[in-house]
């Protein structure tokens, strides 16, 4: 097991003091540390979009890929398909995943590829200093909408449930134990998992008080029941005031995209399959490494 301290990097942290991103960073580091007993640390790959959230890849000492604004999910899919043994975790912004690159999220959910997407949903474009995003509430006064938005936000979890996501959860950056638990379940889920994380942006949209008054942890909820999941997901529409549930809404066990690919490959050719390809590649890499030492 890798000690959590060994997951630190030398990069200077430039998030604003009090930013919710710190909770996400600490929670995921602790999850990676814990899981490193069963998953080799070199098999973790973290992928980010562009935004404040994206800096997280600089702050965790595992393999990482800093992608483009909106394109974290397809990059992660490519990584996973190339080597299905990797544990691929995406960190995306709400602007990133729900705006600029929304289509990728829907298709990743649809094909049930085994990656985890953690959305730092601060409901604002943080890095470009405070404009509205697809989850900003109606009337949100941001830098690009000084008179308030005229659009109603969408509920990303509702959208992802309809898109076929097989693990759907909501976290909050206040209350780190719950966040850790949700992240851990998401990372261990076999298939596409999404954690919409209410991440407070203290500089441009400080919702600590608002959320803290309304959040509660899901209890006695059957995560395998689609209808109950739908009802719970619809309880809060990201716009009107209502209780906000935290925890896992939905989970379904079904074949992943990679498994289906392997199956089809075997069906078609009867010979080559993905694990064989990977084994071959790993042999090659071993040889190269051996020749270097």
């Amino acid at each position, binding site marked *: 097991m890798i000690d959590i301290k060994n997951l630190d990097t030398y990069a200077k942290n430039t998030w604003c003091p009090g930013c919710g991103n710190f909770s996400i960073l600490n929670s995921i580091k602790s999850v990676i540390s814990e899981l490193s007993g069963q998953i080799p640390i070199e098999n973790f790959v973290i992928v980010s979009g562009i935004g404040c959230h994206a800096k997280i890849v600089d702050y965790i000492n595992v393999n990482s890929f800093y992608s483009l604004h909106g394109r974290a999910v397809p990059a992660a899919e490519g990584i996973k398909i190339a080597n299905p043994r990797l544990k691929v975790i995406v960190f995306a912004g709400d602007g990133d995943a729900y705006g600029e690159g929304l289509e990728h999220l829907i298709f990743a959910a649809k094909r049930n590829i085994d990656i985890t997407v953690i959305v730092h949903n601060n409901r604002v474009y943080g890095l470009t*200093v405070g404009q509205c995003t697809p989850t900003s509430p109606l009337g949100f006064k941001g830098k*690009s909408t000084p008179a308030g938005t005229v659009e109603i936000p969408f509920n990303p979890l509702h959208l992802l449930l309809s898109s076929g996501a097989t693990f759907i959860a909501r976290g909050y950056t206040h209350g780190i134990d719950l966040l850790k638990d949700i992240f851990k379940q998401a990372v261990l889920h076999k298939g596409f998992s999404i954690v919409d994380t209410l991440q407070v942006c203290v500089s441009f949209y400080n919702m600590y008080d608002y959320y803290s008054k309304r959040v509660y942890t899901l209890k006695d909820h059957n995560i395998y029941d689609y209808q109950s999941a739908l009802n719970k997901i619809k309880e809060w529409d990201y716009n009107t005031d209502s209780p906000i549930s935290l925890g896992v809404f939905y989970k379904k066990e079904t074949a992943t995209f990679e498994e289906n690919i392997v199956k089809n490959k075997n069906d078609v050719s009867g010979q080559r399959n993905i694990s064989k390809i990977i084994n071959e590649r790993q042999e090659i890499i071993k040889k190269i490494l051996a020749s270097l030492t």
Partner: protein
Amino acid sequence: MPQRLTKTANEVFAEAMRQINPDVVAAYPITPATEVVQIFSQFVADGKVKTEFVAVESEHSAMSACIGASACGVRTLTGTSSQGLAYMWEMLYIASGLRLPIVMAVVNRALSSPINIHCDHSDTMGARDCGWIQIFSENVQESYDNFLQAVRIAEHQDVRLPVMVTTDGFILSHCLEVVEVLEDETVRKFIGENPERKSILDVENPFTLGALDLQDYYFEHKRQQAEGMKNSLNLIPLIGKEFGDKFGRYYDFAESYKLDDAEIAIVIMGSTAGTAKDVVDQLRDEGKKVGLLKLRVFRPFPANVIQKALENIKVVGIMDRADSVNAISGPLYPEICTSLYDSDKKPLLVDYIYGLGGREVREEDIQLVFSELFNILKTGKTYNLKYIGVRE
């Protein structure tokens, strides 16, 4: 009376947009261009303009929305930078192919990868064959003046093409300069009314834009588009002269600086022209015959103007703030070569790639370029490409 104000290029772009008072602006934020539209959205909120402002979900959507709006015949503006411009790429061709006079502020910033937010010209250069007119600015004043002229150029019936006006990211977009801002009424008169064009909102005469155009007519439409770009060669200097006659600042395709009797010169675009002019002055004080050609308009490429300006020079250094990564040169170099090919007096040409990703360009760098050029003059031996200011 025009006002003398202290403003950044982003601020004057927003100011120009307010004065133009467009019908539609659709945009998506990106550093260092975010402010342009952000300041403008405050004008919208304060009721200072009649504009419908759409805070869309991506740049692809921003340009698409602008295309839709402009197709309805209304005045449409936007702004972006770097990855934003890259993401618009597909739609840039639609705007020019449909002959829609959209005007866009582009704040030059390096393209990923690796990610960088500072100035170079790779974003604009990446869009150089999209059929847009491209105008570069040396300073904040030019950014403002160019933006106003762009509306006239884009909307002229002989041209009818979209225009991007660029400014250098951070160097101009975020730096204050004393500029002259015209009165609102003066601007309104200069740009005139939005000219009538055939539009899809004309319910009496319905028609389709962007319809399937195969072997039968596609080529003719493309030929017409090329003609529009060619026509802009006549129009751009006329508008520049009219602007000068009215407001005292004259514009043409390029600005010759101490070129008349020069033996050695550099060609440059954007803000570094200012630094380079200082170096030219220093060398002139030392009695050296050096000069500079600042290229303002990259599309259309004013080949004749370039040929006339450079054919009597002995050695010319071309300054490219973007790399074509083609194992030959940056994007400006081949265009200059083409311009001079027909001339019997061919100067020796060398390409210098400089300032990528916001790498600072100091006077010493330009001095180095000139000393290289002097060396070439002396020895008669040249090379085609050198990188300036990089560790290698």
